[in-house]
């Protein structure tokens, strides 16, 4: 059966927006419960860390290039470089490393 692509797009968009808007629209007060506050405090660090590793190694053509980008990215961020500069460092490392590693 051939379904309508616009209906698919509408379903995807509505489900995605609902997930994002419900907490933002309805949690209007500061959360007092200390466990929930602590939990939400740690969420971004865990989520972003989980998504970075090992994906950074699997997404490059050569895993060593990804590992180098991870190391350089951590060092650059540790030294307090801006978001844009850390991202540029990682890209440059992969580009140069793969010139050597990928024939």
């Amino acid at each position, binding site marked *: 059966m051939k*379904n309508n*692509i616009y209906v*698919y*797009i509408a*379903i*995807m*968009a509505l*489900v*995605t927006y609902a*997930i*994002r808007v*419900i*907490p933002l*629209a309805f*949690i*209007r007060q*500061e959360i007092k419960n*200390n*466990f929930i*506050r*602590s*939990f*939400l*405090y*740690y*969420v*971004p*660090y*865990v*989520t*972003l*860390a*989980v*998504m*970075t*590793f*090992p*994906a*950074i190694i699997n*997404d*490059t*053509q050569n895993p060593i*290039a*990804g590992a180098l*980008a991870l190391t350089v*990215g951590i060092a650059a*961020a540790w030294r307090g470089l*801006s*978001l*844009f500069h*850390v*991202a540029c*460092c*990682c*890209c*440059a*490392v*992969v*580009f140069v490393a793969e010139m050597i590693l*990928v024939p």
Partner: protein
Amino acid sequence: MQFSSTNSQAYREGLHDGIPIGLGYFAVAFSLGIICRSSGFSVFQGFLASFLNNTSAGEFAAITLIGAGASYLEIAMVTLIANARYLLMSCALSQRFASDTPMIHRLGVAFAVTDELFGIAIARPGMLNPWYYYGAMSMAIPGWSSGTALGIIAGSQLPARIVSALSVALFGMFLAVIIPPARQSKVILAVILTSFAASFIASTWPALAAFSSGTRTIILTVAISTMAALLHPLKADAQFEEA
């Protein structure tokens, strides 16, 4: 809210911080465009899907299934699962909104709660100015949707070398968000190292590797954040942004 000079300044800062996100999205969306094309999307339909969704994993999963002739219900379910982590991010973000923030800004920011935009918003100290978010959105959304459209038009990928190099831009941004606070707090450092290790194990351990990466992210986020909150709760009177 008046469009004061503070808001205009915040908007410009958002534009600036949004540049690498827009560029990274553009490259990643290009390969999404290839999938759109094989699933029978026209250039406009691909652009529309990306403009309205702003999700990477969610769109990849759903559009691949659409190509395989999935039902509407299946598309709703896969979108829900792949994007459920945004529910947690929106909860966290809600704590960065001043309680008198008008509803229109809550509805506006919610349009594009993505991993990267969430990351830079949470990295800003104090309460979030929605105009900062809008600035970053103004770079990110066009990058994502035009990248998708161009991927459909071109039909074949950029040179693999370029795609490979650009693909780590997003990870570089994640690191720039999570590493500086880890320098200040040993607890955050431990949380990040635990997350790296757990994520690596989960991607190789068959019982967990069978789940999609979106689902694994949810499971690990809930498990590790719960553990951290139990072992190291915030001080009762501390501000949200302090450990």
